[in-house]
């Protein structure tokens, strides 16, 4: 899977799973609360039923004139009777604090129910019942909710993976089609470009031709095509490319690449300033270094104005290339690394140059900085 595909797949999964799981958490939470209330309601119903039984017993006791009256007590229920002034009369327990304004309530892991009595048998106006909350069904409910949630997470993760692949398939197909097209096109480019360049060299060497100016233009155009071919090949092969990292003499390489661009620089009549320190070595794959330098030069020349300035600085820590070209808008600087992104369409190209530079810089843990003022200048600095 390509990086873009992975990123899209990951984004899709992240959005899909986070929204689905959020929904499930919410649903489970609501389900849990609803069921918990139901369990508590059932236990409250048991309290109500017990209250009716006690009320009946109190009614019977009110007509009993024995020397002792046995108060009805049926564990696990505890009860107490209170008079109209809410004063305690008798009971199997005495509540710390009765919440008279409520009918049913919970306190210290216990359920309470206040039952009104009328007529006031034995003077009782209120019957307060209490019972420990039976937590077994609540624990069962927690277990069920968790199992449901885990199963939902697993099921929807698998579904997300499947759907992700399904959704990404058209994109993958498009990328593959585009890659195949680039591969075929570049392959077809190679032979004619090589033929043109070889023959130009032969003409220059063997014949004293009158149309030198026109020949230089053909050479420049062919070299541009050749670089484009190399960039596209680089991008295509980048994933399987075996790098040969070695200590490369960047000073010499830089000079040779500038020499390669000489005809283009001359064609645009650029004022070239070089501040290149000798013997600068860098651990890098030579092909990577060439691609990086060529792309930076190509951009600096291509987007420079005629008779503009081109300053190249190389020292022990960095390489910077300054041009007085079209510049890049502030809002475009962050996006300029993206493949096929072009800040300016005035010149030809596919917008892959800075993407290649970005990939190389990232691979070697260099830092890449673009300082630009629109329509004035651009300074690209690579620090290692």
């Amino acid at each position, binding site marked *: 899977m390509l990086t873009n595909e992975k990123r899209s797949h990951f984004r899709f999964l992240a959005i899909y799973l986070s929204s689905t799981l959020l929904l499930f958490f919410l649903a489970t939470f609501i389900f849990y609360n609803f069921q918990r209330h139901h369990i508590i309601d059932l236990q409250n119903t048991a309290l109500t039923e017990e209250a009716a039984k006690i009320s009946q017993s109190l009614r019977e006791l*009110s*007509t009993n*004139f*024995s*020397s*002792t*009256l*046995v*108060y*009805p*007590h049926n564990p696990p229920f505890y009860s107490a009777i209170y*008079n*109209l*002034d809410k*004063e305690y*009369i*008798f009971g*199997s327990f005495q509540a710390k604090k009765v919440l008279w304004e409520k009918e049913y309530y919970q306190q210290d892991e216990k359920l309470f129910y206040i039952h009104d009595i009328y*007529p*006031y*048998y*034995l*003077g*009782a*106006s209120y019957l307060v019942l209490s019972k420990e909350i039976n937590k077994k069904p609540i624990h069962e409910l927690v277990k069920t909710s968790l199992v449901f949630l885990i199963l939902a997470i697993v099921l929807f993760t698998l579904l997300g993976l499947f759907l992700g692949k399904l959704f990404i398939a058209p994109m993958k197909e498009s990328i593959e089609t585009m890659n195949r097209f680039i591969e075929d096109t570049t392959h077809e480019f190679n032979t004619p470009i090589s033929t043109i360049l070889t023959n130009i060299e032969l003409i220059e060497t063997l014949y004293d031709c009158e149309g030198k100016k026109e020949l230089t233009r053909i050479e420049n155009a062919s070299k541009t095509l050749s670089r484009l071919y190399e960039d596209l090949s680089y991008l295509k092969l980048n994933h399987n490319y075996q790098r040969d990292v070695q200590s490369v003499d960047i000073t010499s390489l830089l000079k040779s690449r500038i020499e390669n661009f000489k005809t283009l620089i001359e064609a645009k009549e650029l004022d070239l300033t070089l501040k290149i320190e000798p013997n600068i070595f860098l651990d890098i794959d030579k092909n990577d270094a060439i691609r990086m330098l060529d792309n930076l030069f190509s951009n600096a020349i291509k987007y420079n104005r005629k008779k503009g300035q081109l300053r190249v600085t190389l020292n022990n820590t960095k390489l910077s290339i300054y041009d007085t070209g079209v510049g890049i808008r502030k809002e475009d600087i962050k996006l300029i690394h993206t493949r096929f992104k072009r800040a300016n369409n005035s010149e030809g190209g596919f917008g892959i140059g800075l993407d290649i530079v970005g990939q190389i810089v990232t691979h070697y843990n260099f830092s890449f900085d673009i300082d630009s003022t629109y329509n004035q200048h651009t300074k690209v600095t690579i620090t290692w």
Partner: protein
Amino acid sequence: MVKTILFLSLLFSSNILAKEASEKLQKNCMHCHIKQKIPSELIYRRYLKKYSTHSAIKKTLLSYLKNPSRKTSIMPKQFFLKFPEKEALDLNETDLSESIDAYLNYFDIRKKLVLP
């Protein structure tokens, strides 16, 4: 030591007062009730069933005993077929109040209730 003496004297005096009130109850009320076989506890339960609190019962009883009549009584009509209609007691307010307190205390339901 002083506290103990004070506590014991208070306990002793309250016992005396309770005994006095009980004697008043026997003399002013229970004597006739027993003689005429009037079910005092049943009357207490009936008041309790209607008024719930001793304070409310006392207020009602006080008013009734000052001016007893079938109309103001909470007892059913059948009760007066069996038992004579009560006559007004010749007691001062304090004695009447103490007698009612003693009556309520004597039949207090809390003294009878026990847990199984």
